[in-house]
């Protein structure tokens, strides 16, 4: 119920690369899980509000007062490829938006 094409599409959206064997295994496993999960699709939940937050809070905000940022050396300490004070990456071949 989730086929090879869909697996490849979802993998691309997730930035995961699967080899042929993995694609097949994944299709099978996901189909199995979705087969179970599908039971909820048949439930009559008309008019039920979805829960996106269990906490009933509102307006939890932060005052617009600056705090001490990290020194750039610390910011870049974990960077796989620091370069000239910035995070270097291969150039995108497409625009973001």
């Amino acid at each position, binding site marked *: 119920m989730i086929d090879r094409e869909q697996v490849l*599409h979802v993998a*691309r*959206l997730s*930035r995961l690369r699967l080899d042929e064997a993995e694609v097949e295994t994944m299709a099978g496993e996901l189909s199995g899980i979705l087969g179970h999960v599908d039971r909820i699709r048949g439930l009559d939940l008309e008019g039920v509000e979805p829960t*996106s*937050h269990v*906490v009933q*809070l*509102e*307006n*939890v*905000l*932060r*005052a*617009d*007062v*600056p*705090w001490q*940022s*990290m*020194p*750039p050396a610390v*910011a*870049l300490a*974990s960077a796989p*490829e620091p*370069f*000239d*004070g*910035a*995070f*270097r*990456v*291969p*150039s*995108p*071949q*497409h*625009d*973001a*938006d």
Partner: protein
Amino acid sequence: MPEELEAVIGLEIHVQLSTRTKMFCGCELSFGDEPNVHTCPICLAHPGVLPVPNEEAIRYALKIGMALGCEIAPRSIFHRKNYFYPDNPKAYQISQYDIPICGEGKLGDIRITRAHLEEDAAKTIHVGESGRIHGSAASLVDFNRGGTPLVEIVTEPDLRGAAEAAEWARLLRETVRQLGVSDVNMEEGSLRVDANVSVRPAGQAELGTKTELKNMNSFRFLQRGIEAELARQRELIGAGGTVEQETLHFDPASGELTSLRSKEEAHDYRYFPEPDLVAIAPTEAMLAEARDSLPELPAARTARYEAELGLDQAQARLLAGDPEQAAYFEAVVAAVGAGGEPRVVANWVTGDLTAALRAAEGADRPAPQPLADLIGAVAAKTISHAGGKQVLAILVAEGDADVAAIIEREGLAQIGGDDDELAGIVAAAIESDPAAAEQIRSGNGKAIGAIVGAVMRETKGRADGGEVNRLIREQLGL
């Protein structure tokens, strides 16, 4: 035919807010610094961090919404917009989706669909030779800007032309600028305007396929970009083609439109409610505070000037668009008092005074009362308009002065009105040029110039031209 295809334009505007800190963390916002000096684990999206919204950004968003006449949502939530890009460190942007903080509104004649809060991406620059990775093109990411609060404003496709769109964008910019919530500078990027452009046969209700125009960083380029795209679409359809939905970049230097490189698959942002943030439900106090802090905005002021002061629309818009000048204008109107005409004051302030100030570079406006006195003197024909301009130049130079004294000192007092002296001079001029008088009597209106000229020479320009004309005609029995 292409000419019968009407333009249908909507705008998407991003306003960078001028808060002190970022939207979801306390890093300071400032520009032009070394890269990555304003970051923290939150805006670098380290594992385990959580966002907390900036209360000032919420306030600014409410002000913008109110200034645009928007409905304020009693409860709005944040959503995650998921996509991978180096300038998007969480690989999702926190934004608002189907329940934005501001709903429908209107500015001028254009309807606003919505306005919502979100965070800005970081800055990516592409490097030259030295920065390449294994010989391949590389980019460097600076997260200083990442997380800046943005308000995105979306309009209905109510605009019908490129010029109108640019004009309206200017109105929007001025409106937002006066709120004090953003620098709204297109060149610097604190104001970004994208256009959704389509065409359709005039009278058709259904919309044509729209394209999105991005990256125009001035109002002029916005207008030219839209013009170019409208021409392209009209030509395409005229030749039997169809418009494809795409994103385009306008290059003002070449006038060319290029399609931005798109990803292989269409955008699927997989929006879902942001679980790390709770709802925004503006309280009465928050709403009142935002409302009370709104200044009189251009659209309202324009309307007031037209309705209450009798200015024509062009004059009203001109003044309303500059709050400093508008305030001055109103002070002068008040100083002139009852019996004065605001239209006349408006003409002086936006016309002669502006020219005089420009000529005397760096000069300040004179105090309102002396200008009011001057305007009154010209209106009463105590001096001619030309004489008034001379007085104005002196006023601008001296700032505050006794207008009557200046008129006296410069000898600019006009001869005319009830002054018999003028009638006498006119009579003398007619007598000394009977040929012209005869011409005038027989209907050659232009000949009056000779008599007027003689009177002006005799009075050294201090006669009121209209009064001279009147006296000449009266004495010739016309």
